[in-house]
């Protein structure tokens, strides 16, 4: 159990993040879920890089055993990417709020035009279809 603690934590974060993205309609909450999800990836990379008994990866003749530095570098990049995504996402949400007056996704989808038009079209089509066969 303890051995796999890091993996379990990673998976929990991953699933929780994905769940929020799937289940929440609030656009900000979705972004929070997304960030959680991304955080799990940071853990996925960094945790295995820790070498038991090792020091931080600082070049020093006195220290022979140190953690794998590569994942740290990679995840630094990933964090930057994650921040950029979050910032852009939040910007979009602000603009969406301005344009639609809401940040609930289902309300926004309901406000969009095609649905109404479509219902009319379906109605018209079935009407004309019936009219045609009757005549």
């Amino acid at each position, binding site marked *: 159990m303890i051995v796999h603690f890091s993996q379990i934590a990673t998976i929990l974060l991953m699933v929780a993040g*994905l769940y929020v993205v799937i289940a929440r309609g609030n656009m900000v909450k979705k*972004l929070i879920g997304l960030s959680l999800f991304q955080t799990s990836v940071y853990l996925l*990379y960094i945790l295995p890089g820790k070498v038991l008994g090792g020091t931080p990866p600082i070049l020093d003749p006195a220290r022979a055993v140190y953690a794998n530095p590569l994942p740290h570098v*990679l995840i630094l990049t*990933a964090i930057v*990417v994650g921040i950029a995504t979050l910032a852009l*996402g939040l910007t*979009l*949400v602000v603009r969406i709020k301005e344009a639609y007056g809401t940040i609930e996704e289902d309300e926004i989808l309901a406000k969009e035009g095609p649905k109404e*038009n479509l219902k009319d079209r379906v109605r018209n089509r079935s009407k004309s279809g019936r009219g045609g066969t009757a005549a």
Partner: protein
Amino acid sequence: MIATHLPVLLILAPLLGAILAALSRNGVAAWLIGLVASALTAAVAFALLWRVQAEGVISYRIGGWAPELGIEYRVDAVNAFIVVLVGIVAVLTMIFARRSVLAEIIPERVASFYTMMLLCIAGLLGIAVTGDAFNAFVFLEISSLSTYTLIALGRDRRALVAAYQYLIVGTIGATFYVIGVGLIYLVTGTLNLGLIVERLASLQSSRGLIVAEAFIVIGIGLKLALFPLHAWLPNAYAYAPSSAAVLLASTATKVAIYLLARFLFTVFGGHIDVGSIAFGSLLIGLSLAAMFLASAAAVVQNDIKRLLAFSSVGQIGYITLGLALANPTGITGGLLHLFNHALMKGAAFMAMGAIVLRTGTAKLDELAGIGRVMPWTAAALTIAGLGLIGVPGTSGFVSKYYLILGALEAGHGWLAILIVASSFIAVLYVGRIVEVVWFREPAAAAREASEAPLEMLLPMWGLAGVTIWFGVHAEWPAGLASAAADTLLRMVP
């Protein structure tokens, strides 16, 4: 001197261009920078292709670091093919963009629009040339973030929602991908694709690898709009600014397909346990679903841009089907269709961009008789449509022909019949466009419009002409695709 640095020049040209364009803060200057940068990129792409054909694989180490630690750019027959495609489309899109950007983007944002275009191009090219799995992720995110911005710059407020949806979905996709890469890193200890392949061969347990493959395939699948993960695409293409739609439709999904092929064949194909089990049947099923359902959805669309977007999802089905066949002819067909579809869809979206510029609408029922006043534009749209159907004499026929042969070679005669049958659906949606555009009496929108400006017609007809040209003289793209397929299947070292 320059020749040795070609791979990195390919990325640097649009990247530096993007920085300059951002600094310029002036629409005209930004466009000029974009044009020069993309022209340079295209030239470098062709030079790369030429070198790969002459000398074989090019390996370039960034900063001189060895692959284990540093990043390697690796260009072979497959990426050279993709890079040339992106280069061609980038230049033509830049030429096309000026007028439509003037009309669609508010002046203060024009410079940032070109910045994003160049960033997107840089990201896509980076994915194509890099030989490092994590580096590919970084480039994937560079292109994705700029794409979200490009889409959000669209005039319609729905563009914002489309961009937001794509942002969520795209980030999930990229994260899935990076999870898969992380798992591979855990089992092999390296991120360099070449080294991964070497170390996979001696790998004992394949469980981690299977999960890694699943994450990577689904992650990239989201990016390339694999059915049923395509739902972000129609709105994104429909509400993005016209020139952004051209760039995205022609290159973004195509580069993602390249990445998928790279992983499926080069990386996982090398390992016996993973090679062909999971993806074959599932991918064939999903491809067929895309070919039929997405195309059927295209038939009932009223917005031509959305129609074309759904058609893209359907056409991507053909490409992935070619990959799923996993024999040289099938993969050649898939890659060739990737190439041909990029060019004809680019022409189609350019034509729509010109029509939107002149009429302000992309609704099918409002565009009746537009062929009378914009004959050249409508003709380009029609040629692209014929290509989508796969009418002989267009490049679409050649690639579908290869796909059919590939299906027969794989012993799936029924697949060959389904490929032909699904073309019927394309006949329906293209037929709808042709009927409305050419044979209806001009509606109000058409009466007030006039032919598109020459600077839009030229790139549009460049792509439409190439659709015809490669339909007749198919040897060049077919040769490239076939070489790429052989490289993917390791038929050549």
